């Protein structure tokens, strides 16, 4: 059993109780489906910006960015920049048009714009796929944080499994009870909590940790970058012990002696954590340094990753749904600016924490002061995703660790809550209300939404439990950020080409949009699965399959392919909806907004009114 961090655990429990309490409080104001899915469309600019930021800043941002920087240096910093940059695409091309169009969901947009049920249903499938890709790392983050925080399991489960199950159940409960209003209020609170927690860690790093950004970067760059890996003795001693020789150059004398002791014990299946000199994948003739690109990505992936991150944001269903909660198109734009300010400051801080962790955790480990719940190899964390709680505990003891752990859970709660709402609305609204029982009373519709939340929470929970079982946690150095980027890649392939052409090219046809979504969405899915198989060692190391499997991010292929498919098929097809002018007026027309502005209806009232729609 690991070390219990009592103060930290109390803080996490306090946050959880507050979250659930808020959902129960808001329950009385959730009466209609507009309330449940869209918070009654009465969310103000700053409130909505905070909620979007809470929705967006997931475990990938709070735990994953610092972890990616810790593990991969500059290639990891790109996660932060790309996550922020994505909102420019949203504000320039998507935000106000989506709000003007109205409706509830992305699938509604697809149906309203192209007029067919099959495109709506395919959009639903892609929404669910993207959401599940995004929920998986949140659940993994829950297990990882629980392991560092509590270090003990319950009910016969491991610490990791316990974290996944408990977080899954809490989110399921509060989303079912509070709907979008409860989720929105929680997201606002949770965003500011995790922003403050990140800020505190960085302030403590500069003060208590005596960290200096420019000098710290110089210090970690003074020697070659090293990778942490868990390998078997058989792998270490294969090919005349080539790997073992390489490990010896990367580790300290004491650290290598421990590895050698495991090798000398003679069990070929025994595993041991080792350090290996990192290779530069971009400039293959150069050594790999922390402050240079190339640790994770070759030239293709450098571009593809940037595209996946900046385009993917505009394809995240839970973020797009948020734009319908704005009172006007102009408010949607203003919300996005404030989102950029809020998350931008957060993303400036997260890589600082990653770099500071590199130095401070190493120092603490050498002084014998590193927290016992995390595993280390020669001063480096075995799992980089544990960096935030570990660094916080070193810098500020249990109080700061508590703030960070609560922040991590807040990040998981807020994002998974938004994803569950998006998934529930895809089934409850897009399928049940439209095709199965259009005349259902409001109470029944809300009930179906809640059952959908229950179902997808259980699915997310199962995926979270399955990640270590298939070995994914050992296949990627910073798994949380990596998995979230897969969701970005699927969203960027499936939705963004359809949304961009649907909004900005009147001649887009239903067949064109559908074909583009198939190529972009399923193409991205295919490449990601191939990459996972390659990382898990299930694909050959040479040949076509090896090349396909080596593409970490497929967006450089899939996005242009989807866009081209839409254009070519639409031109060949040429069958525009009969009411295309009406649709066009709905997307780009401003009469409604001018009218609302004249009457003062573009101003926000309160989320706690009794909305009547």
């Amino acid at each position, binding site marked *: 059993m690991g070390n219990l961090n009592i103060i930290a655990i109390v803080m996490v429990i306090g946050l959880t109780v507050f979250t659930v309490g808020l959902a129960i409080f808001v329950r009385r104001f959730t009466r209609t489906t507009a309330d449940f899915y869209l918070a009654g469309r009465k969310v103000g600019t700053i409130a909505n910006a905070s909620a979007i930021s809470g929705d967006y800043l997931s475990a990938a941002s709070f735990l994953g960015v610092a972890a990616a920087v810790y593990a991969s240096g500059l290639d990891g910093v790109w996660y932060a920049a790309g996550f922020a940059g994505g909102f420019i695409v949203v504000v320039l091309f998507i935000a*106000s048009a989506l709000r003007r169009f109205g409706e509830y969901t992305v699938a509604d947009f697809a149906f309203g714009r192209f007029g067919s049920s099959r495109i709506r249903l395919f959009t639903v499938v892609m929404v669910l796929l993207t959401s599940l890709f995004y929920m998986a790392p949140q659940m993994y983050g829950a297990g990882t944080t629980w392991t560092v925080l509590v270090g003990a399991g319950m009910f016969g489960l491991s610490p990791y499994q316990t974290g996944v199950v408990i977080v899954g159940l809490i989110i399921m409960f509060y989303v079912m009870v509070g709907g979008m209003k409860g989720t929105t209020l929680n997201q606002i609170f949770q965003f500011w909590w995790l922003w403050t927690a990140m800020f505190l860690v960085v302030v403590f790093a500069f003060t208590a940790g005596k960290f200096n950004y420019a000098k710290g970067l110089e210090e970690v760059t003074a020697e070659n970058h090293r990778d942490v890996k868990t390998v078997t003795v058989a792998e270490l001693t294969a090919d005349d012990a080539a790997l073992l020789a390489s490990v010896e150059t990367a580790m300290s004398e004491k650290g290598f002696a421990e590895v050698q002791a495991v090798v000398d014990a003679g069990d070929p299946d025994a595993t041991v954590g080792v350090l290996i000199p990192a290779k530069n994948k971009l400039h293959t003739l150069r050594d790999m340094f922390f402050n240079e690109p190339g640790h994770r990505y070759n030239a293709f992936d450098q571009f593809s990753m940037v595209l996946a991150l900046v385009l993917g944001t505009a394809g995240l269903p839970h973020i797009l749904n948020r734009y319908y909660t704005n009172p006007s198109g102009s408010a949607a734009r203003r919300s996005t600016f404030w989102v950029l300010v809020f998350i931008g400051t957060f993303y400036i801080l997260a890589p600082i924490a990653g770099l500071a962790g590199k130095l401070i955790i190493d120092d603490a480990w050498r002084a014998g002061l590193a927290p016992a719940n995390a595993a280390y190899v020669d001063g480096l964390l075995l799992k980089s995703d544990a960096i935030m709680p570990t660094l916080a505990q070193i810098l500020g003891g249990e109080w700061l660790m508590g703030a960070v752990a609560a922040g991590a859970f807040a990040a998981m709660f807020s994002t998974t809550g938004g994803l569950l709402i998006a998934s529930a609305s895809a089934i409850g609204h897009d399928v049940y209300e439209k095709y199965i029982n259009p005349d259902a009373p409001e109470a029944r519709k809300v009930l179906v939404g809640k059952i959908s939340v229950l179902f997808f929470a259980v699915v997310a929970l199962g995926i979270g439990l399955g990640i270590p079982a298939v070995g994914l946690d050992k296949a990627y150095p910073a798994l949380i950020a990596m998995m979230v980027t897969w969701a970005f890649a699927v969203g960027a392939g499936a939705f963004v080409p359809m949304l961009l052409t649907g909004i900005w090219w009147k001649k887009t046809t239903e067949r064109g949009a559908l074909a583009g979504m198939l190529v972009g969405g399923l193409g991205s899915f295919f490449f990601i699965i191939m990459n996972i198989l390659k990382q898990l060692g299930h694909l050959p190391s040479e040949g076509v399959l090896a090349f396909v499997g080596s593409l970490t991010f497929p967006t450089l292929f899939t996005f242009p392919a989807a866009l081209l498919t839409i254009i070519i098929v639409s031109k060949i097809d040429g069958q525009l909806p009969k009411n295309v002018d009406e649709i066009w007026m709905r997307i780009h027309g401003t009469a409604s907004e001018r009218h609302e502005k004249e009457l003062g209806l573009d101003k926000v009232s309160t989320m706690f009114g009794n909305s009547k729609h």
Partner: protein
Amino acid sequence: MGETSARATHVQHGSHIDTIESVDAVFREQRKLSFAYGAVFFVVTLAIPAMSVWWKSWYAVPIWGGFTANYLFVSLLYYLFLWGLSWTYIKKADALDERLSHMADEIAAATLAAAEGGES
């Protein structure tokens, strides 16, 4: 809320009307603005990995402590670029909305008057 009606040729909310002609005019202006800013965003954003691949002074030469120009831009300066770009875009988009709302009313009124004249 005021009266709202929709026909194939126009949409009316209270006293404000959208016709396809007015919407097309508004759309063209909005497209020009969004795509101009979009071009700036993508050129700058994709220039970063391009320089990371091909310009050694960008990715390998420290300019301040351990900061290379590449690291400094991605970790700090890129955000200033994003904030500046989005702020100026929003200001321009709001100003455009204001200007276009008058234009839309005028075009819609002229179009409807011409259509009614044609019918009578």
